[in-house]
Protein backbone atom coordinates (compact mmCIF):
# COMPACT_ATOMS: atom_id res chain seq x y z
CA UNK A 1 0.00 0.00 0.00
CA UNK A 2 1.25 3.47 -0.84
CA UNK A 3 2.17 5.99 1.78
CA UNK A 4 -0.20 8.91 2.28
CA UNK A 5 2.40 11.50 1.35
CA UNK A 6 3.10 9.98 -2.05
CA UNK A 7 1.33 11.67 -4.94
CA UNK A 8 -0.77 9.70 -7.37
CA UNK A 9 1.15 8.25 -10.30
CA UNK A 10 0.17 10.06 -13.47
CA UNK A 11 0.09 8.11 -16.69
CA UNK A 12 -2.40 9.47 -19.16
CA UNK A 13 -4.99 10.24 -16.49
CA UNK A 14 -5.85 9.59 -12.89
CA UNK A 15 -5.02 6.19 -11.46
CA UNK A 16 -8.27 5.07 -9.87
CA UNK A 17 -6.74 1.79 -8.69
CA UNK A 18 -4.43 3.87 -6.55
CA UNK A 19 -7.05 6.41 -5.46
CA UNK A 20 -9.50 3.66 -4.45
CA UNK A 21 -7.80 1.03 -2.36
CA UNK A 22 -9.42 -1.84 -0.53
CA UNK A 23 -9.41 -0.18 2.87
CA UNK A 24 -8.94 3.52 2.10
CA UNK A 25 -9.84 6.13 -0.52
CA UNK A 26 -8.17 9.36 -1.53
CA UNK A 27 -9.73 12.74 -0.70
CA UNK A 28 -9.24 14.00 -4.26
CA UNK A 29 -12.10 11.70 -5.30
CA UNK A 30 -14.39 14.27 -3.67
CA UNK A 31 -12.54 17.46 -4.60
CA UNK A 32 -10.78 17.11 -7.96
CA UNK A 33 -12.81 18.43 -10.90
CA UNK A 34 -10.93 16.00 -13.20
CA UNK A 35 -12.46 13.17 -11.21
CA UNK A 36 -15.90 14.70 -11.66
CA UNK A 37 -15.36 14.98 -15.41
CA UNK A 38 -14.34 11.31 -15.54
CA UNK A 39 -17.41 10.34 -13.51
CA UNK A 40 -19.75 12.15 -15.87
CA UNK A 41 -18.24 10.30 -18.79
CA UNK A 42 -17.83 6.85 -17.29
CA UNK A 43 -20.66 6.60 -14.75
CA UNK A 44 -23.39 8.98 -15.86
CA UNK A 45 -23.00 8.75 -19.64
CA UNK A 46 -21.73 5.28 -20.41
CA UNK A 47 -23.42 3.31 -17.65
CA UNK A 48 -27.06 2.84 -16.74
CA UNK A 49 -28.58 5.70 -14.77
CA UNK A 50 -32.02 5.89 -13.15
CA UNK A 51 -34.19 8.50 -14.90
CA UNK A 52 -37.70 8.19 -13.51
CA UNK A 53 -40.69 5.95 -13.09
CA UNK A 54 -43.35 4.79 -15.53
CA UNK A 55 -46.08 6.14 -13.27
CA UNK A 56 -44.79 9.69 -13.74
CA UNK A 57 -45.65 9.62 -17.45
CA UNK A 58 -48.76 7.48 -17.70
CA UNK A 59 -50.17 8.76 -21.01
CA UNK A 60 -48.73 9.41 -24.48
CA UNK A 61 -47.25 12.90 -24.52
CA UNK A 62 -46.57 13.00 -20.78
CA UNK A 63 -43.03 14.07 -19.96
CA UNK A 64 -40.71 14.98 -17.10
CA UNK A 65 -37.37 16.78 -17.36
CA UNK A 66 -34.38 15.19 -15.62
CA UNK A 67 -30.61 14.94 -15.85
CA UNK A 68 -28.26 12.10 -16.68
CA UNK A 69 -25.34 13.42 -14.69
CA UNK A 70 -25.35 17.02 -15.91
CA UNK A 71 -26.93 16.18 -19.28
CA UNK A 72 -30.43 17.70 -19.47
CA UNK A 73 -32.97 15.17 -20.76
CA UNK A 74 -36.70 14.79 -21.27
CA UNK A 75 -38.26 11.45 -20.39
CA UNK A 76 -41.37 11.23 -22.56
CA UNK A 77 -43.98 8.63 -23.41
CA UNK A 78 -44.49 8.33 -27.14
CA UNK A 79 -47.72 7.76 -29.08
CA UNK A 80 -46.96 4.05 -29.12
CA UNK A 81 -46.56 4.03 -25.34
CA UNK A 82 -42.79 3.53 -25.47
CA UNK A 83 -40.57 5.70 -23.27
CA UNK A 84 -37.86 7.82 -24.89
CA UNK A 85 -35.15 9.80 -23.15
CA UNK A 86 -34.37 12.80 -25.36
CA UNK A 87 -31.46 15.16 -24.89
CA UNK A 88 -33.05 18.50 -24.01
CA UNK A 89 -31.19 20.57 -26.57
CA UNK A 90 -32.39 21.86 -29.91
CA UNK A 91 -30.42 20.41 -32.83
CA UNK A 92 -30.25 23.87 -34.40
CA UNK A 93 -28.63 26.27 -31.91
CA UNK A 94 -28.51 24.25 -28.70
CA UNK A 95 -31.42 25.92 -26.87
CA UNK A 96 -33.10 23.92 -24.12
CA UNK A 97 -36.33 22.82 -25.78
CA UNK A 98 -38.35 22.03 -22.67
CA UNK A 99 -38.06 23.91 -19.38
CA UNK A 100 -41.19 22.68 -17.61
CA UNK A 101 -40.55 20.17 -14.85
CA UNK A 102 -43.41 18.05 -16.13
CA UNK A 103 -46.33 18.26 -18.49
CA UNK A 104 -48.13 16.77 -21.42
CA UNK A 105 -47.64 17.75 -25.04
CA UNK A 106 -48.09 16.61 -28.64
CA UNK A 107 -44.76 17.95 -29.80
CA UNK A 108 -41.69 19.74 -28.48
CA UNK A 109 -41.12 23.16 -30.00
CA UNK A 110 -37.95 25.16 -29.55
CA UNK A 111 -38.76 28.75 -28.51
CA UNK A 112 -35.81 30.22 -30.41
CA UNK A 113 -36.62 29.56 -34.10
CA UNK A 114 -39.62 27.31 -33.88
CA UNK A 115 -38.04 23.96 -34.70
CA UNK A 116 -40.56 21.32 -33.77
CA UNK A 117 -39.92 17.71 -32.79
CA UNK A 118 -42.24 14.78 -32.28
CA UNK A 119 -42.35 12.74 -29.06
CA UNK A 120 -39.58 10.49 -30.35
CA UNK A 121 -37.32 13.47 -31.06
CA UNK A 122 -37.73 13.39 -34.87
CA UNK A 123 -37.69 16.84 -36.44
CA UNK A 124 -41.16 17.61 -37.79
CA UNK A 125 -40.34 20.96 -39.27
CA UNK A 126 -38.03 23.99 -39.34
CA UNK A 127 -39.60 27.32 -40.37
CA UNK A 128 -38.51 29.03 -43.63
CA UNK A 129 -36.99 25.98 -45.31
CA UNK A 130 -35.85 28.12 -48.25
CA UNK A 131 -32.68 28.95 -46.31
CA UNK A 132 -31.17 25.57 -46.99
CA UNK A 133 -30.33 24.21 -50.47
CA UNK A 134 -31.19 20.75 -49.25
CA UNK A 135 -32.40 19.79 -45.84
CA UNK A 136 -32.73 16.26 -44.59
CA UNK A 137 -35.02 16.49 -41.56
CA UNK A 138 -34.17 12.95 -40.53
CA UNK A 139 -30.60 14.07 -39.76
CA UNK A 140 -31.59 16.89 -37.41
CA UNK A 141 -33.69 15.30 -34.71
CA UNK A 142 -33.05 15.67 -30.98
CA UNK A 143 -30.23 13.50 -29.72
CA UNK A 144 -31.58 10.70 -27.58
CA UNK A 145 -30.31 8.13 -25.14
CA UNK A 146 -29.61 5.18 -27.43
CA UNK A 147 -30.53 2.73 -24.70
CA UNK A 148 -33.60 3.01 -22.46
CA UNK A 149 -34.80 0.08 -20.42
CA UNK A 150 -36.95 -0.45 -17.40
CA UNK A 151 -37.46 -2.89 -14.59
CA UNK A 152 -40.87 -2.99 -12.88
CA UNK A 153 -41.55 0.59 -13.90
CA UNK A 154 -38.12 1.97 -12.93
CA UNK A 155 -36.73 3.56 -16.10
CA UNK A 156 -32.99 3.63 -16.70
CA UNK A 157 -31.06 5.10 -19.62
CA UNK A 158 -27.55 5.08 -21.00
CA UNK A 159 -26.06 7.63 -23.37
CA UNK A 160 -23.79 4.94 -24.78
CA UNK A 161 -25.03 2.81 -27.71
CA UNK A 162 -23.10 -0.18 -26.42
CA UNK A 163 -22.43 -1.78 -23.08
CA UNK A 164 -23.93 -4.31 -20.71
CA UNK A 165 -27.70 -4.71 -20.60
CA UNK A 166 -29.80 -3.26 -17.79
CA UNK A 167 -30.36 -6.82 -16.54
CA UNK A 168 -26.59 -7.30 -16.31
CA UNK A 169 -26.17 -3.91 -14.62
CA UNK A 170 -28.78 -4.71 -11.98
CA UNK A 171 -27.79 -8.35 -11.51
CA UNK A 172 -29.31 -9.89 -8.40
CA UNK A 173 -30.18 -6.41 -7.07
CA UNK A 174 -33.49 -6.67 -8.94
CA UNK A 175 -34.57 -8.43 -5.76
CA UNK A 176 -34.22 -5.14 -3.90
CA UNK A 177 -36.59 -3.45 -6.33
CA UNK A 178 -38.88 -6.49 -6.06
CA UNK A 179 -38.94 -6.16 -2.29
CA UNK A 180 -40.43 -2.67 -2.62
CA UNK A 181 -42.80 -3.39 -5.53
CA UNK A 182 -44.10 -6.65 -4.06
CA UNK A 183 -45.48 -4.76 -1.07
CA UNK A 184 -48.14 -3.46 -3.44
CA UNK A 185 -51.01 -5.89 -3.98
CA UNK A 186 -50.84 -4.81 -7.64
CA UNK A 187 -47.07 -5.36 -7.71
CA UNK A 188 -46.37 -1.76 -8.64
CA UNK A 189 -45.29 1.41 -6.95
CA UNK A 190 -46.57 4.82 -8.01
CA UNK A 191 -44.74 8.14 -7.77
CA UNK A 192 -47.52 10.69 -7.93
CA UNK A 193 -46.85 13.04 -5.03
CA UNK A 194 -44.25 15.29 -6.66
CA UNK A 195 -40.59 15.59 -5.75
CA UNK A 196 -38.86 17.64 -3.09
CA UNK A 197 -35.32 18.69 -3.99
CA UNK A 198 -32.70 19.23 -1.33
CA UNK A 199 -29.47 21.03 -2.15
CA UNK A 200 -26.31 19.51 -0.77
CA UNK A 201 -23.01 21.41 -0.50
CA UNK A 202 -21.04 18.20 -0.87
CA UNK A 203 -19.83 15.80 -3.53
CA UNK A 204 -22.59 13.59 -4.94
CA UNK A 205 -20.95 10.36 -3.72
CA UNK A 206 -21.51 11.41 -0.12
CA UNK A 207 -25.24 10.83 -0.58
CA UNK A 208 -25.13 7.17 -1.67
CA UNK A 209 -22.39 6.57 0.87
CA UNK A 210 -24.39 8.13 3.67
CA UNK A 211 -27.67 6.55 2.58
CA UNK A 212 -26.03 3.15 3.09
CA UNK A 213 -24.05 4.00 6.21
CA UNK A 214 -25.47 2.34 9.31
CA UNK A 215 -22.75 3.71 11.57
CA UNK A 216 -23.76 7.37 11.72
CA UNK A 217 -27.35 7.14 12.92
CA UNK A 218 -26.91 7.48 16.65
CA UNK A 219 -24.52 10.39 16.19
CA UNK A 220 -25.72 12.49 13.27
CA UNK A 221 -29.37 11.88 14.21
CA UNK A 222 -28.93 12.12 17.95
CA UNK A 223 -31.59 14.84 18.16
CA UNK A 224 -34.15 12.48 16.65
CA UNK A 225 -33.30 9.62 18.98
CA UNK A 226 -33.59 12.00 21.93
CA UNK A 227 -37.03 13.15 20.77
CA UNK A 228 -39.02 10.41 19.05
CA UNK A 229 -39.25 6.65 19.06
CA UNK A 230 -38.74 5.22 15.58
CA UNK A 231 -38.06 2.00 13.78
CA UNK A 232 -34.35 2.81 14.03
CA UNK A 233 -34.26 2.70 17.82
CA UNK A 234 -32.69 -0.73 17.92
CA UNK A 235 -29.66 0.27 15.87
CA UNK A 236 -28.25 2.75 18.31
CA UNK A 237 -27.89 0.44 21.28
CA UNK A 238 -25.09 -1.87 22.33
CA UNK A 239 -22.98 -3.00 19.36
CA UNK A 240 -23.49 -6.68 20.24
CA UNK A 241 -27.29 -6.47 20.39
CA UNK A 242 -27.75 -4.83 16.99
CA UNK A 243 -29.23 -7.29 14.50
CA UNK A 244 -29.48 -5.12 11.38
CA UNK A 245 -26.94 -5.83 8.66
CA UNK A 246 -25.21 -4.16 5.73
CA UNK A 247 -25.10 -6.10 2.50
CA UNK A 248 -23.03 -5.74 -0.66
CA UNK A 249 -24.98 -7.14 -3.61
CA UNK A 250 -22.14 -6.56 -6.05
CA UNK A 251 -21.99 -4.19 -9.05
CA UNK A 252 -22.12 -1.21 -6.67
CA UNK A 253 -25.59 -2.04 -5.36
CA UNK A 254 -25.61 -1.96 -1.58
CA UNK A 255 -28.17 -2.38 1.15
CA UNK A 256 -28.85 -1.76 4.78
CA UNK A 257 -31.32 -4.31 6.08
CA UNK A 258 -33.02 -3.26 9.29
CA UNK A 259 -35.46 -6.15 9.20
CA UNK A 260 -33.46 -8.66 11.28
CA UNK A 261 -34.07 -6.23 14.16
CA UNK A 262 -37.82 -5.93 13.60
CA UNK A 263 -39.98 -7.85 16.03
CA UNK A 264 -43.47 -7.20 14.66
CA UNK A 265 -45.12 -6.51 11.29
CA UNK A 266 -45.13 -2.94 10.02
CA UNK A 267 -42.38 -1.63 12.30
CA UNK A 268 -40.97 -0.05 9.11
CA UNK A 269 -44.32 1.76 8.80
CA UNK A 270 -44.41 2.98 12.37
CA UNK A 271 -46.92 0.23 13.16
CA UNK A 272 -50.25 -0.26 11.41
CA UNK A 273 -53.69 -1.60 12.21
CA UNK A 274 -57.33 -1.16 11.25
CA UNK A 275 -59.59 -2.36 8.44
CA UNK A 276 -57.49 -0.93 5.58
CA UNK A 277 -54.45 -2.74 6.91
CA UNK A 278 -56.36 -6.00 7.30
CA UNK A 279 -57.58 -5.72 3.69
CA UNK A 280 -54.04 -5.02 2.54
CA UNK A 281 -52.63 -8.06 4.33
CA UNK A 282 -55.45 -10.22 3.00
CA UNK A 283 -54.67 -9.07 -0.55
CA UNK A 284 -51.00 -9.98 -0.14
CA UNK A 285 -51.97 -13.36 1.34
CA UNK A 286 -54.26 -14.12 -1.60
CA UNK A 287 -51.45 -13.41 -4.03
CA UNK A 288 -48.43 -14.79 -2.17
CA UNK A 289 -49.72 -17.12 0.51
CA UNK A 290 -49.63 -16.46 4.24
CA UNK A 291 -45.96 -17.19 4.80
CA UNK A 292 -44.60 -14.89 2.09
CA UNK A 293 -47.12 -12.16 2.96
CA UNK A 294 -46.00 -12.33 6.57
CA UNK A 295 -42.36 -11.95 5.49
CA UNK A 296 -43.23 -8.92 3.35
CA UNK A 297 -45.00 -7.03 6.12
CA UNK A 298 -42.24 -7.91 8.58
CA UNK A 299 -39.36 -6.84 6.31
CA UNK A 300 -40.91 -3.81 4.63
CA UNK A 301 -39.41 -2.11 1.58
CA UNK A 302 -35.72 -2.05 0.79
CA UNK A 303 -33.19 0.46 2.09
CA UNK A 304 -30.72 0.21 -0.74
CA UNK A 305 -28.70 2.05 -3.33
CA UNK A 306 -28.96 1.00 -6.96
CA UNK A 307 -25.69 2.27 -8.41
CA UNK A 308 -25.14 5.09 -9.06
CA UNK A 309 -28.12 7.37 -8.41
CA UNK A 310 -31.27 5.53 -7.29
CA UNK A 311 -31.89 5.20 -3.58
CA UNK A 312 -34.69 2.93 -2.47
CA UNK A 313 -35.23 4.77 0.81
CA UNK A 314 -37.68 2.40 2.46
CA UNK A 315 -41.04 4.12 1.91
CA UNK A 316 -39.40 6.76 -0.32
CA UNK A 317 -37.62 6.83 -3.65
CA UNK A 318 -34.67 9.19 -3.99
CA UNK A 319 -32.46 10.37 -6.85
CA UNK A 320 -28.94 11.72 -6.52
CA UNK A 321 -28.23 14.48 -9.05
CA UNK A 322 -24.63 15.69 -9.33
CA UNK A 323 -24.16 19.38 -10.13
CA UNK A 324 -20.39 19.70 -9.83
CA UNK A 325 -17.62 18.10 -7.83
CA UNK A 326 -18.72 20.15 -4.83
CA UNK A 327 -22.50 20.19 -5.04
CA UNK A 328 -25.43 17.90 -5.69
CA UNK A 329 -29.19 17.60 -5.20
CA UNK A 330 -31.11 14.89 -3.37
CA UNK A 331 -34.61 14.38 -4.81
CA UNK A 332 -37.24 12.37 -3.01
CA UNK A 333 -40.86 11.35 -3.27
CA UNK A 334 -42.96 8.86 -1.31
CA UNK A 335 -43.41 5.43 -2.82
CA UNK A 336 -47.15 4.90 -3.06
CA UNK A 337 -48.26 1.27 -3.22
CA UNK A 338 -50.66 0.72 -6.09
CA UNK A 339 -53.88 -0.75 -4.78
CA UNK A 340 -53.67 0.79 -1.30
CA UNK A 341 -54.37 4.52 -1.62
CA UNK A 342 -55.39 4.43 2.05
CA UNK A 343 -51.68 4.43 2.92
CA UNK A 344 -50.85 7.53 0.89
CA UNK A 345 -51.54 10.02 3.67
CA UNK A 346 -49.23 8.22 6.08
CA UNK A 347 -46.58 7.78 3.38
CA UNK A 348 -46.65 11.52 2.66
CA UNK A 349 -46.16 12.39 6.31
CA UNK A 350 -43.36 9.80 6.65
CA UNK A 351 -41.62 11.27 3.60
CA UNK A 352 -41.82 14.76 5.09
CA UNK A 353 -40.45 13.52 8.42
CA UNK A 354 -37.57 11.57 6.94
CA UNK A 355 -36.31 13.37 3.87
CA UNK A 356 -36.01 16.85 2.46
CA UNK A 357 -34.72 20.21 3.68
CA UNK A 358 -37.25 20.60 6.51
CA UNK A 359 -37.36 16.96 7.62
CA UNK A 360 -36.17 15.50 10.90
CA UNK A 361 -33.28 13.52 9.38
CA UNK A 362 -31.77 14.77 6.13
CA UNK A 363 -30.79 18.29 7.22
CA UNK A 364 -28.34 16.70 9.64
CA UNK A 365 -26.97 14.38 6.95
CA UNK A 366 -26.44 17.24 4.54
CA UNK A 367 -24.88 19.45 7.20
CA UNK A 368 -22.36 16.69 7.83
CA UNK A 369 -21.83 16.27 4.08
CA UNK A 370 -21.03 19.99 3.81
CA UNK A 371 -18.62 19.67 6.73
CA UNK A 372 -17.05 16.65 5.02
CA UNK A 373 -16.51 18.71 1.91
CA UNK A 374 -14.82 21.40 4.01
CA UNK A 375 -12.67 18.92 5.91
CA UNK A 376 -11.54 17.23 2.72
CA UNK A 377 -9.86 20.44 1.62
CA UNK A 378 -7.12 19.45 4.06
CA UNK A 379 -4.16 18.16 2.09
CA UNK A 380 -1.91 17.02 4.92
CA UNK A 381 -3.98 13.88 5.54
CA UNK A 382 -5.44 12.82 2.19
CA UNK A 383 -6.84 9.37 2.98
CA UNK A 384 -10.30 8.35 4.23
CA UNK A 385 -10.61 5.07 6.08
CA UNK A 386 -12.77 2.34 4.61
CA UNK A 387 -11.75 -0.73 6.59
CA UNK A 388 -14.41 -1.00 9.27
CA UNK A 389 -15.78 -4.54 9.45
CA UNK A 390 -13.07 -6.22 7.38
CA UNK A 391 -12.47 -8.32 10.49
CA UNK A 392 -15.99 -9.74 10.61
CA UNK A 393 -17.77 -9.50 7.27
CA UNK A 394 -18.66 -12.78 5.56
CA UNK A 395 -20.05 -14.04 2.28
CA UNK A 396 -23.54 -15.52 2.50
CA UNK A 397 -25.03 -18.44 0.55
CA UNK A 398 -26.12 -16.06 -2.25
CA UNK A 399 -22.63 -14.67 -2.67
CA UNK A 400 -23.35 -11.34 -1.02
CA UNK A 401 -20.94 -9.86 1.49
CA UNK A 402 -22.73 -9.22 4.78
CA UNK A 403 -21.68 -7.57 8.01
CA UNK A 404 -22.79 -5.69 11.09
CA UNK A 405 -24.88 -2.68 10.08
CA UNK A 406 -22.25 -0.27 11.42
CA UNK A 407 -19.55 -1.71 9.15
CA UNK A 408 -18.24 -0.20 5.93
CA UNK A 409 -19.06 -3.30 3.89
CA UNK A 410 -21.62 -1.26 1.94
CA UNK A 411 -19.18 1.59 1.29
CA UNK A 412 -16.54 -0.86 0.10
CA UNK A 413 -19.10 -2.39 -2.25
CA UNK A 414 -19.83 1.03 -3.71
CA UNK A 415 -16.16 1.92 -4.13
CA UNK A 416 -15.11 -1.45 -5.52
CA UNK A 417 -17.57 -1.06 -8.35
CA UNK A 418 -16.63 2.60 -8.77
CA UNK A 419 -13.00 1.57 -9.18
CA UNK A 420 -13.94 -0.99 -11.84
CA UNK A 421 -16.07 1.46 -13.82
CA UNK A 422 -13.55 4.28 -13.53
CA UNK A 423 -10.49 2.25 -14.48
CA UNK A 424 -11.77 -0.16 -17.14
CA UNK A 425 -10.67 0.44 -20.71
Amino acid at each position, binding site marked *: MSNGSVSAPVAGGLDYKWLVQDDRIHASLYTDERVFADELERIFHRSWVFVGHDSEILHPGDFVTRHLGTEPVVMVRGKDGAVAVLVNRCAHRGTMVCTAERGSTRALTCPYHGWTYDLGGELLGAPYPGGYATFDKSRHGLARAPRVSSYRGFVFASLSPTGISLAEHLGPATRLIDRSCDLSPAGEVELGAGWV*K*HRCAGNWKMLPENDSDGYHLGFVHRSMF*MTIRSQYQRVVGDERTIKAVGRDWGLGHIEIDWSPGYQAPFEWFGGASGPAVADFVAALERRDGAEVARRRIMEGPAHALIFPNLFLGETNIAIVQPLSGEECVHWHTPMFLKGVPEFNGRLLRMAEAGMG*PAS*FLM*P*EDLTVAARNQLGLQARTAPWLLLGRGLNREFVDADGRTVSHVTDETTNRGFWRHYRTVMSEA
Partner: protein
Amino acid sequence: MLSDVEYRTVVEFLYREARLADEARYAEWLALWTDDGVYWVPATTDPAADPQKHLSHIYDNRARLDTRVKLLQTGHRYSQEPASLMRRLISNIEVQAAGDDELVAGSNFVLAELAIQAKHEMHWWVGRTTHRLRRVDGDLRMSRKKVVLINAAEPLPNLSFLI
Protein backbone atom coordinates in the same frame (compact mmCIF):
# COMPACT_ATOMS: atom_id res chain seq x y z
CA MET B 1 -64.12 46.41 7.89
CA LEU B 2 -61.39 45.80 10.41
CA SER B 3 -60.70 48.51 12.99
CA ASP B 4 -57.29 50.16 13.14
CA VAL B 5 -56.75 48.65 16.55
CA GLU B 6 -57.46 45.15 15.27
CA TYR B 7 -55.18 45.66 12.30
CA ARG B 8 -52.42 46.92 14.53
CA THR B 9 -52.82 43.96 16.88
CA VAL B 10 -52.36 41.60 13.95
CA VAL B 11 -49.30 43.44 12.67
CA GLU B 12 -47.73 43.33 16.11
CA PHE B 13 -48.42 39.62 16.31
CA LEU B 14 -46.72 39.04 12.95
CA TYR B 15 -43.67 41.06 13.96
CA ARG B 16 -43.40 39.29 17.28
CA GLU B 17 -43.75 35.86 15.68
CA ALA B 18 -41.03 36.77 13.18
CA ARG B 19 -38.68 38.00 15.89
CA LEU B 20 -39.11 34.90 18.04
CA ALA B 21 -38.40 32.68 15.02
CA ASP B 22 -35.40 34.79 13.97
CA GLU B 23 -33.91 34.61 17.44
CA ALA B 24 -34.47 30.86 17.91
CA ARG B 25 -36.72 31.48 20.94
CA TYR B 26 -38.39 28.15 20.37
CA ALA B 27 -40.61 27.78 23.43
CA GLU B 28 -42.02 31.29 23.11
CA TRP B 29 -42.65 30.74 19.41
CA LEU B 30 -44.44 27.47 20.09
CA ALA B 31 -46.65 29.20 22.65
CA LEU B 32 -48.10 31.34 19.85
CA TRP B 33 -49.94 28.32 18.44
CA THR B 34 -53.40 26.99 19.20
CA ASP B 35 -53.71 23.33 20.18
CA ASP B 36 -55.10 22.49 16.74
CA GLY B 37 -52.39 24.34 14.83
CA VAL B 38 -51.33 23.34 11.31
CA TYR B 39 -47.98 24.51 9.94
CA TRP B 40 -47.72 24.08 6.18
CA VAL B 41 -44.90 24.82 3.74
CA PRO B 42 -45.90 23.42 0.33
CA ALA B 43 -43.25 22.10 -2.05
CA THR B 44 -44.88 23.97 -4.92
CA THR B 45 -46.24 27.44 -5.64
CA ASP B 46 -49.33 25.90 -7.22
CA PRO B 47 -52.36 27.26 -5.31
CA ALA B 48 -54.12 23.95 -5.98
CA ALA B 49 -51.53 22.02 -3.96
CA ASP B 50 -53.21 19.50 -1.67
CA PRO B 51 -51.19 18.24 1.30
CA GLN B 52 -53.20 15.00 1.26
CA LYS B 53 -52.05 14.26 -2.29
CA HIS B 54 -48.80 16.16 -2.75
CA LEU B 55 -45.53 16.10 -0.91
CA SER B 56 -44.87 19.21 1.18
CA HIS B 57 -41.73 20.55 2.81
CA ILE B 58 -43.63 20.79 6.09
CA TYR B 59 -47.14 19.69 6.95
CA ASP B 60 -47.17 19.59 10.74
CA ASN B 61 -50.12 19.00 12.98
CA ARG B 62 -49.70 20.17 16.54
CA ALA B 63 -47.99 16.95 17.69
CA ARG B 64 -45.42 17.12 14.92
CA LEU B 65 -44.93 20.82 15.50
CA ASP B 66 -44.05 20.00 19.11
CA THR B 67 -41.58 17.40 17.85
CA ARG B 68 -40.04 19.90 15.43
CA VAL B 69 -39.41 22.32 18.29
CA LYS B 70 -38.18 19.59 20.66
CA LEU B 71 -35.57 18.54 18.09
CA LEU B 72 -34.29 22.10 17.97
CA GLN B 73 -34.18 22.21 21.75
CA THR B 74 -32.02 19.08 22.11
CA GLY B 75 -28.87 20.99 21.20
CA HIS B 76 -28.07 18.18 18.74
CA ARG B 77 -30.10 19.26 15.72
CA TYR B 78 -26.81 19.86 13.91
CA SER B 79 -28.38 21.61 10.92
CA GLN B 80 -29.34 24.35 13.42
CA GLU B 81 -26.47 23.97 15.86
CA PRO B 82 -25.51 26.70 16.22
CA ALA B 83 -28.74 28.33 15.10
CA SER B 84 -28.62 30.30 11.87
CA LEU B 85 -28.39 34.06 12.25
CA MET B 86 -31.57 35.43 10.76
CA ARG B 87 -33.62 38.55 10.21
CA ARG B 88 -36.83 38.73 8.26
CA LEU B 89 -38.70 41.73 6.96
CA ILE B 90 -42.47 41.55 6.76
CA SER B 91 -44.59 43.77 4.56
CA ASN B 92 -47.64 44.00 2.26
CA ILE B 93 -49.86 42.95 5.14
CA GLU B 94 -53.53 42.38 4.34
CA VAL B 95 -55.95 41.31 7.04
CA GLN B 96 -59.50 40.02 6.70
CA ALA B 97 -62.03 38.77 9.17
CA ALA B 98 -62.85 35.08 8.80
CA GLY B 99 -65.96 33.87 10.50
CA ASP B 100 -66.94 35.14 13.95
CA ASP B 101 -63.70 34.97 15.83
CA GLU B 102 -60.84 34.44 13.39
CA LEU B 103 -58.68 36.65 11.21
CA VAL B 104 -56.68 35.80 8.13
CA ALA B 105 -53.51 37.77 7.51
CA GLY B 106 -51.48 37.64 4.32
CA SER B 107 -47.95 39.06 4.29
CA ASN B 108 -44.78 39.01 2.24
CA PHE B 109 -41.42 38.27 3.78
CA VAL B 110 -37.77 38.48 2.90
CA LEU B 111 -35.58 36.46 5.22
CA ALA B 112 -31.80 36.61 5.26
CA GLU B 113 -30.24 33.54 6.85
CA LEU B 114 -26.56 33.18 7.59
CA ALA B 115 -26.17 29.41 7.83
CA ILE B 116 -23.18 29.07 10.13
CA GLN B 117 -23.26 25.29 10.59
CA ALA B 118 -20.82 24.51 7.77
CA LYS B 119 -20.03 26.88 4.92
CA HIS B 120 -21.19 30.18 6.47
CA GLU B 121 -23.38 30.88 3.46
CA MET B 122 -26.01 33.57 3.19
CA HIS B 123 -29.38 32.17 2.09
CA TRP B 124 -32.28 34.34 0.96
CA TRP B 125 -35.81 33.11 1.55
CA VAL B 126 -38.71 34.98 -0.01
CA GLY B 127 -42.40 34.21 -0.01
CA ARG B 128 -45.89 34.96 1.17
CA THR B 129 -47.32 33.77 4.43
CA THR B 130 -50.96 33.27 5.33
CA HIS B 131 -51.71 33.25 9.04
CA ARG B 132 -55.04 32.21 10.47
CA LEU B 133 -55.39 33.87 13.87
CA ARG B 134 -57.81 33.28 16.72
CA ARG B 135 -58.34 34.95 20.09
CA VAL B 136 -57.57 32.59 22.95
CA ASP B 137 -57.93 34.01 26.46
CA GLY B 138 -57.68 37.52 25.06
CA ASP B 139 -54.50 36.94 23.03
CA LEU B 140 -54.06 36.14 19.37
CA ARG B 141 -52.84 32.63 18.53
CA MET B 142 -52.00 31.01 15.20
CA SER B 143 -54.21 28.12 14.19
CA ARG B 144 -52.64 27.88 10.76
CA LYS B 145 -49.53 29.18 9.11
CA LYS B 146 -48.93 28.55 5.42
CA VAL B 147 -45.67 29.69 3.88
CA VAL B 148 -45.38 29.67 0.09
CA LEU B 149 -41.76 30.16 -0.91
CA ILE B 150 -41.25 31.57 -4.39
CA ASN B 151 -38.67 28.81 -4.92
CA ALA B 152 -40.68 26.08 -3.19
CA ALA B 153 -40.20 23.68 -6.09
CA GLU B 154 -36.48 24.37 -6.56
CA PRO B 155 -33.63 22.61 -4.77
CA LEU B 156 -33.53 24.17 -1.31
CA PRO B 157 -30.79 24.18 1.30
CA ASN B 158 -31.62 23.07 4.83
CA LEU B 159 -34.88 24.51 6.13
CA SER B 160 -34.76 23.20 9.67
CA PHE B 161 -35.13 26.61 11.30
CA LEU B 162 -38.61 28.06 11.86
CA ILE B 163 -39.79 29.77 8.71
